[in-house]
């Protein structure tokens, strides 16, 4: 009865939250109910584990989960998914409690869960999914994750041959999970107009198999591309199950297995989410490519990284980054650099304030290549934020930017940020910062309007 009490308690909270504020509660009911039954997720009935997939990794798991869920639903499948984004065990308990009958029975064609990579072993213990998609395993959230190997050990701790792995062929750590199972599907992206190289001063990374250095011939996105270990021969496969080809950013199309798709978002990192989603929906769910192609056309990503604000005569293009994550910062810099128009670039890297102790890390900026940005017609740079604004300015100076081209203000006051933006001659403004500042800017604009 412990499970039933927990379930009913969760349902009660879910109902209350729906009445108060539908936007909240992606985690709360599960968290509370798990006090009554800590093994709650394990006790739901009717789940076929071969129909459960965990989508995990450093970057891209939310967008991939959104896209997979969209594609399956458009194909008429009943899908249970944690689209609201709570990707720990309580978040999964919450969504299952919402979808279950009063006795805890679930009925869906597929269960698609975005799962936090660090806590995946705990989730797997209660919900032994037989399918896992790994987007990539890269440097991220070092304050809690330390280094990629720390996460690698977590995910590999329960690896077994019963699991079907969907692996990113172009990202070494993801690809190396092939060693744990005979059941592997590879996805990836062919070289394209956005493929780039890095100069030799940028480190690559250690081979996940032998720990010698990997060599990258080129990158499609940072840390993801055409690689080989000269010591043990570990490399991306030449021929894989699902690879995007003919990527055309101008016409926003790509092809896969001779079917041409429209890209909902013409961004390099999204190509991997497309490849992953197509691999899953086609191989795992058996949806034919023409049906997927149609479903692609009306996909809208939830909580994407880009927003536009209008302020006086300026167009402010907000680009969200994940702090402590060089790959999302690099992607953002590359996108800005690809705009040849005159522009102002506002960089608001902040101290880390996720949990105590807060700390002043902005060192990931030195993993990123700012060269293309500095050569892309930037009228002025504006470095703001608390504590690390000077370090951000210094990073630009180390890339060769003249100090008098940079305004540095130690502030998070949005009025001061807008005031600085107003001074720009160009109307084309890019702002790279965390969500908190963007939310305040958006709120401020609504108030002044």
């Amino acid at each position, binding site marked *: 009865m412990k499970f039933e009490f927990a379930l009913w308690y969760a349902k009660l909270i879910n109902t209350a939250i729906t009445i108060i504020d539908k936007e909240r509660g992606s985690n709360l009911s599960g968290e509370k109910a798990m006090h009554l039954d800590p093994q709650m997720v394990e006790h739901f009935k009717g789940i076929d584990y071969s129909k459960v997939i965990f989508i995990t990794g450093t970057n891209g798991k939310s967008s991939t989960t959104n896209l997979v869920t969209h594609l399956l639903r458009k194909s008429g499948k009943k899908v249970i998914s944690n689209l609201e984004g709570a990707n720990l065990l309580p978040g999964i308990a919450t969504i299952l409690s919402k979808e279950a009958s009063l006795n805890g029975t679930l009925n869906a064609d597929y269960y698609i869960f975005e799962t936090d990579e660090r806590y995946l072993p705990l989730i797997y213990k209660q919900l032994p999914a037989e399918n896992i998609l790994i987007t990539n395993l890269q*440097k991220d959230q070092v304050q809690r994750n*330390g280094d990629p190997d720390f996460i690698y050990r977590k995910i590999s701790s329960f690896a077994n041959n019963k699991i079907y792995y969907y692996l990113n062929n172009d990202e070494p750590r993801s690809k190396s999970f092939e060693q744990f199972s005979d059941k592997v599907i590879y996805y990836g992206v062919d070289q394209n107009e956005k493929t780039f190289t890095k100069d030799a001063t940028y*480190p690559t990374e250690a081979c996940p198999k032998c720990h010698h250095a990997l060599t990258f011939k080129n990158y499609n996105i940072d840390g993801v591309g055409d690689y080989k270990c*000269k010591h043990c021969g570990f490399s991306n496969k030449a021929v894989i199950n699902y690879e995007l080809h003919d990527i055309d950013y101008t016409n926003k199309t790509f092809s896969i297995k001779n079917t041409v798709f429209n890209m909902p978002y013409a961004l390099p990192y999204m190509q991997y989410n497309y490849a992953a989603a197509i691999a899953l929906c086609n191989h795992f769910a058996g949806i034919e490519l023409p049906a997927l192609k149609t479903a692609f056309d009306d996909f809208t990503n939830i909580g994407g990284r880009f927003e536009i604000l209008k302020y006086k005569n300026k167009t402010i293009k907000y680009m969200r980054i994940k702090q402590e994550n060089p790959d999302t910062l690099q992607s953002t810099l590359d996108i800005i650099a690809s705009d040849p128009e005159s522009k102002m670039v506002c960089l608001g890297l902040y101290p880390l304030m996720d949990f105590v102790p807060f700390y002043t890390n902005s060192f990931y900026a030195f993993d990123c290549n700012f060269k293309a940005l500095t050569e892309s017609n930037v009228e002025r740079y504006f470095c703001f934020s608390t*504590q690390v604004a000077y370090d951000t300015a210094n990073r630009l100076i180390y890339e060769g930017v003249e100090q008098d081209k940079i305004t540095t203000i130690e502030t998070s006051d949005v009025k001061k940020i807008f005031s600085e933006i107003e001074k720009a001659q160009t109307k084309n403004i890019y702002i790279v910062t965390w969500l908190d500042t963007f939310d305040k800017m958006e709120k401020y604009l609504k108030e002044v309007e």
Partner: protein
Amino acid sequence: MTYKIGWLFPDVLYLHGERGNILALEKAAKAAGIDTEIIKISLEDPSFNPMDFDFLFCPPGEISTFPVIIEYLKPYTDALKTYIDSGHPLLVTGTSICFWGKTITREDGSVIKGLNILNVSAEEKNDVYGDDLYYETTYNHTKMNIFGNQIQMHDLKINDETPFGKVIYGYGNTGHSRNEGVVKNNAIFTHALGPVLVLNPWLTESLIKIMAANKNTPLDHFKLNTDLEAQSLESKLAFIKKKDTTLKTYFELED
């Protein structure tokens, strides 16, 4: 004159933006009118002679990579000792301190034998501790304070070795004492990782001066402009003085 800077295994020890330290050294050397040659030392290099270099930099990496690094460096242990004993500057940051010591005990209980150049031993933690790190030190006869970030994956027992710094704020070697890192002649082993030479140009300046002195071309009056970094430090000190922490702080001692 060209200074040879050896960058140990950058594609294996690749964490935390440490490339910034190489840029800082190049920039400081240039300001002193000195050319630099950056040489990446690779596990595939057929041989390695530490004495070929004016400075060696060893950034942090994943502990899983240490056995292959130790295996490569083992034949050069005596050469590395000679390098340190002769007063050549070396900077080792973060986790990489561990493999210069006697042993590394991993979370699963397995033990990696280190290079045994330092009389220290490391124990991998089962969690990560990330925070700011601020300490005082005297290096090259100059008293200075160092600010950096610490991503601590291990505790370091330093036995009879000399700590490099005295912690003012931060975790240091174990989180339970004021000891931070180790110093042996001009070789620095510190947990302040990331671009520590960018954030602390006063340390970079000392390193350049040591290199110059080792070449009998002293740079006694060489001074970098550190205005921007000093502003950054001031801002961060105000931040760490008032932030929530579970650690003991020693600002009162500094004051």
